[in-house]
């Protein structure tokens, strides 16, 4: 039996890797994947809390997170494609059309 805290450490580690990736990477695709890592870090902690508390809410929320992440991926990739068509870049550093 693995204790709850180890799942929480794993969840915090995955989440932190996601945050770090989001803040350091400049490629939109990588930033987007970092966000997915953050969401999955949250899912790990939700499911482990749910198991620990013997309460279904955490798992329900995890399902919702997975669903919303799918919708988010669809919309995010569509946005990335539309910017790539016009600009042929996936680096946020080069998105300097609006500056003030």
């Amino acid at each position, binding site marked *: 039996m693995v204790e709850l805290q180890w799942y929480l450490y794993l969840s915090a580690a995955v989440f932190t890797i996601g945050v770090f990736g989001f803040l350091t990477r400049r490629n939109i695709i990588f930033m987007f994947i970092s966000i997915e890592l953050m969401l999955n870090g*949250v899912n790990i902690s*939700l499911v482990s809390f749910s198991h620990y508390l013997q309460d279904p809410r*955490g798992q329900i*929320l995890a399902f919702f997170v997975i669903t*919303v992440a799918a919708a988010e991926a669809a*919309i995010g990739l*569509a*946005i990335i494609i539309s910017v790539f068509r016009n*600009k042929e870049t996936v680096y946020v550093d080069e998105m300097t059309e609006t500056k003030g």
Partner: protein
Amino acid sequence: MVEFPPLGPVMPEILMTGFALLILVLDLVIKRKETLAFLSVAAAAVVMYAVLGTSGVTFSGMFAADGYSMFFKLIFLLSLILSILISVKYIAIERVNYGEYYSLMLFSTLGMMIMASAGDLIVLYLGIELMALSTYVLAGFIRHAVKSNEAAVKYFLLGAFASALLLYGISLLYGLTGTTDIKGVAAYISDNGLAGNPALMLSVILFVVAFGFKIAAAPFHMWAPDVYEGAPTSITAFMSVGPKAAGFAAMGRVFLIAFASLQVQWAAILIPLAIVTMAVGNIIAISQTNIKRMLAYSSIAHAGYALMGVIAGTPEGLAGMMSYLLIYAFMNIGAFAIIIMLRSEGFSGENISDYEGLSKKHPVSAALMLIFMFSLTGIPPTAGFIGKFYVFMAAVNAGYTWLVVVAVIFSAISAFFYMRIVMYMYMKEPRREVELTTSPALGLALAISALGVLVIGVFPGRLLDLARIAITLGWGL
């Protein structure tokens, strides 16, 4: 057998979903997109009527149609109607006259309505995502313009990042308290004396950061100027009012119910946040040359003023915050309506210098812009003054006099850049001929917002009474 929960309290949301889907389908058969716009306005009006007659709690407390949420839903629907009215001609000029536009706006408003009514963090999260996902698409709606694409990318990345932070906060809170019900969380925290728990504090901080992104409070505001400038102007107007108000609605519920026993702690985080927000918004706005970007910074500053209502933490403060957001909807969408008027084929009309000498050729539009600018500054007898007055009053009564002094100083600084527009319009010679694009819908939107600004400015009593009643009737229903 489990009894099915009553659907009465969610009727406005069900209607809204139906209408949004209906518009999406009608888009296939109706070729004139203006018709869709008017159908959407009619749909919003029907939903508004339904909202007024709805109250109660359903789905075991997950969804609460109380006075608080009713007031916010009226703000959302009002801003939806005004934004649709200013869009009709504009999206044709931008050559993005598609029916999905209206459907997405309805879905986004539906998300806000769910956020305002959320009695449970799961519902809150779903509302935020429905609102945000629709708005990401709308921000990038001018597919052929690089600016609009970039706005969508920035909004999407930072919005999704903020949602992930919010989720981590929710999961910590769930682990600590064993529930996601907002009232259940509050009860657990006060019963078990969790106030000093470090994990709980981390969760509060994550909530502050996530909501900070949603309401564009500094230092989480950096997306706002770029997104507001790049997005279609009508959507900028919509985003700067609706999602912001929805963020405040959710914030009020989470901080004043779930974290009610931690008020000292979260106020200590929110006060510096409000000061930095007002400073950044008002000071950086001075150096802007693009009016949409200037209004983006102004919108950041206004989030700072409205935050003071939450910081006060009293019913009076919340009532002030709610009336402030309603007034802000009128004056901000009004100002954006004028910006849209200046936009015509081959001319963006987004530079502040385009307003030079506007009063010579177009006295009515200049006068309306003057009213909105006065109101945004907070000069009586406009509504902007009333809004600021109530929020500041509530903060003074809650013992934050020094914070109000700071806010008033920043408010005085803001006069510089709002009055600069007025000065350009009235005291400079026109540099070039500016043709205005008008339409009956735009005129109607302008009339509604100008009337709102002036009527609330002259007869403010009713509005605050309404906000107070909304809180006392519904708070903690």
